[in-house]
């Protein structure tokens, strides 16, 4: 990247979209909402991580995983284990028959910490595990499935089965996992009380920060050649294969990437909400996560963030005023998003709002033309066409700039 290009990027149309999201999350919401509501938004944002992963994995590469909750949950459990160990000091747990181990272990007659809990005394290990454990599982699943060309509906159902297996396991092994109650009563992160309003607000901003980090990683990937390969793979898998690409490796990569995002989201969820339970791993939770992505627009990473925010806000709103209607609304959302507007909000934005913007931008066309004017630019070849006629061609949020013009 040229030193001058970040500034230019921020004034490009795509940059403005990012700025708008940042403005919403960093300025408007914190000012407009009390700490309680802001904390709820923080919780919604943790789902946005999963949704971004799904955009990459499902929207771009066509791999629909109905088991993203597994990775969300694993990330969350890793963080919860660390926090639980911190909360279970020998002093705090003095009334137990074995002080110093988490309370639920004591209730289940465990007398010492299981070996796989030990490393979670270390915060750096935990941070590594939050990303590493989901990625490792994704890698194993991916390796087994993609090299054998399991895809589409089969993959979806198998991931669903994995979600079921993990849920039953966690619930069944309650001495090691906390069972159906999950890991609860998490209080401090390295001595810092995560339950206070100030901490919740801080955690909200940490969420926002991490979210943008993930957005930029996702954006980087989709704008590199790798991103184009993912899209190409979705449409013409064989052509990609016979252009000399190991399709399985790319699928594994993007599946692991989505798993890592989900893991980060899960870990932040644990911090924001203060506990983790198997109900976020199961089938229902996992499929709900898909709708966040689908509503936002399955091809748009920014759309995914809005999708996660809107669906969850609607869910909270509905369940406060018309709880019985919520499942109807949610069901209608699934059907509507698939039948009526398959490209979600981003697609609608592109078809209805963008033309308006187009007219506004016309007045100062400089902004868009500028990047092409860079020194070593050779003519047309440097400027991939803008003509995304079909909605599914491009991420609508970024289509009007050129990925390789650095």
């Amino acid at each position: 990247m040229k030193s001058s290009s970040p500034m230019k990027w921020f004034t490009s149309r795509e940059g403005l979209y990012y700025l708008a999201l940042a403005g919403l999350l960093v300025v408007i919401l914190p000012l407009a909402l009390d700490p309680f509501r802001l904390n709820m938004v923080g919780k919604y944002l943790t789902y946005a991580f999963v949704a971004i992963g799904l955009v990459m994995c499902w929207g771009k590469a066509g791999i629909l995983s109905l088991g993203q909750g597994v990775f969300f949950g694993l990330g969350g459990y890793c963080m919860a284990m660390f926090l639980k160990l911190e909360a279970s000091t020998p002093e705090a747990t003095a009334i137990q028959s074995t002080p110093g181990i988490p309370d639920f272990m004591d209730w289940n007659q465990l007398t010492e910490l299981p070996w796989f809990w030990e490393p979670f005394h270390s915060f750096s290990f935990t941070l590594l595990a939050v990303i590493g454990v989901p990625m490792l599982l994704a890698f194993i699943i991916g390796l087994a499935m993609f090299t054998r060309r399991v895809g589409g509906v089969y993959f979806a159902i198998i991931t669903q089965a994995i979600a079921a297996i993990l849920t039953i396991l966690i619930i069944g092994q309650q001495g090691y996992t906390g069972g159906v109650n999950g890991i609860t009563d998490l209080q401090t992160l390295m001595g810092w009380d995560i339950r206070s309003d100030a901490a919740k607000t801080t955690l909200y901003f940490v969420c926002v920060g991490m979210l943008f980090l993930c957005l930029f990683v996702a954006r980087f990937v989709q704008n590199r050649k790798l991103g184009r390969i993912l899209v190409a793979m979705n449409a013409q898998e064989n052509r990609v294969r016979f252009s000399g690409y190991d399709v399985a490796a790319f699928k594994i990569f993007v599946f692991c990437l989505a798993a890592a995002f989900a893991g980060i989201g899960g870990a932040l969820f644990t911090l924001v909400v203060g506990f983790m339970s198997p109900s976020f791993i199961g089938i229902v939770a996992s499929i709900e996560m898909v709708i966040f992505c689908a509503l936002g627009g399955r091809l748009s990473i920014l759309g995914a963030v809005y999708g996660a925010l809107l669906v969850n806000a609607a869910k909270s709103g509905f369940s406060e005023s018309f709880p019985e209607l919520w499942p109807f609304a949610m069901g209608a959302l699934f059907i509507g998003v698939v039948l009526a507007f398959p490209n979600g909000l981003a697609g609608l934005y592109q078809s209805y709002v963008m033309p308006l913007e187009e007219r506004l931008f016309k007045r100062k066309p400089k902004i868009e033309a500028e990047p092409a004017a860079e020194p070593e630019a050779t003519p047309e070849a440097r400027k991939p066409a803008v003509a995304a006629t079909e909605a599914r061609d491009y991420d609508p949020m970024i289509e009007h700039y050129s990925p390789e013009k650095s």
Partner: protein
Amino acid sequence: MGTIEMTAGGRSIGKGPGFRKSLMTLAASVMLATSVQAAAPATAEVNTTGLAVTDDSVTVGILHSITGTMAISEIGSVQAEKLAIEQINASGGVLGREIKYVQEDGASDWPTFAEKSRKLLRQDNVAAIFGAWTSASRKAILPVIEQYNGMLYYPTFYEGLEQSPNVVYTGQEATQQILAGIDWAVKEKGAKSFYLLGSDYIWPRTSNKIARKHIDKLGLKVVGEEYYPLGHTQFNSVINKIKLKKPDVIFASVVGGSNVAFYKQMKAAGVDFTDEKPLLLTISVTEDEIRGIGGENVEGIYASMKYFQSLDNPNNREFVTAFKETYGDDMVIGDVTQAAYLGPWLWKAAVEKAGSFDIDKIREVFAGIEFKKAPEGYVRIHENHHLWSKTRIGKAQIDGQYEVVFETEELMEPDPFPEGYQ
């Protein structure tokens, strides 16, 4: 205490007018029963912590799942709590203030419970929360309610191992339910061997652990212990195992939809519970569950709980009548529903004893608070925030009701951390 007579006038059918009439009858009778309310004390005196208390009202929260899978179980609790609140209001309210409630839906989703409890405490500043059903939802609420120093009245029988200064447990903890039940089976039915069967989560596992320890102590045998995932619907294999082991007692803590499958398949496999070979003793099937299972499938099983709808005492007759008049004649009332009904009354008693809505002041006076009008008879709050209560054994009838066949003589002491049972 003056006895209360439900007059025939209060029994008109239908929700609207009948409800009001029964309330009026009740109000009149309760007014008679309790001493005449003194003029309401000043708000500043009774509320020093910024709760939602005004000169003529106080706001509480109701937090149960009314959507999702748990709605089945929790709706009865909501109804009972609302009924209690209406009745208290009709009798003059609490410290001269009318109770208003904010109801939130936990949606069978634990973080939602945490979120909603935070909302109730932070935004609505409720003076008490009546709510939660599953242990998981209570565990989710717990940190929130402790952080903001609220008070939760939790109605479900549960596994124990908890004693929060911010929770009042109006249901039984595991030992109260289990020990009396097993003792009864051993003494009255001569049981020697037991088969423990439950859904796979903390409450059945903890309950069975307590049961097993107790059976060991009595020098008797546990011949099998088995758990099935929540929602499991195929029990043929375990039925065969039971037939192979021939236990005297099946001690069952299966919950939810699995229950229906389990009892139907037991019945179909030729097990006639009325033969009591083996005898089935459950701690999870209340009258509510029987509605889904079908009375003909559970006829003859025994349940060990503190409350059955058929309990024959004036308090309960009155409660059952009021409940049915409010919510319809086809309603049944299970153990948890009754425990939920206790919540608002115990809270009222505590507030009036403390002379304040402040949580800290209420907490100090909890120990020893009695509720003589409890449908289950008489309850008293133990200093560990659980209730002293009697345990009863009911025998299921084909009409879906239990016939009470045994009742402990004394109130059972609640013991959430039972020494020797962990």
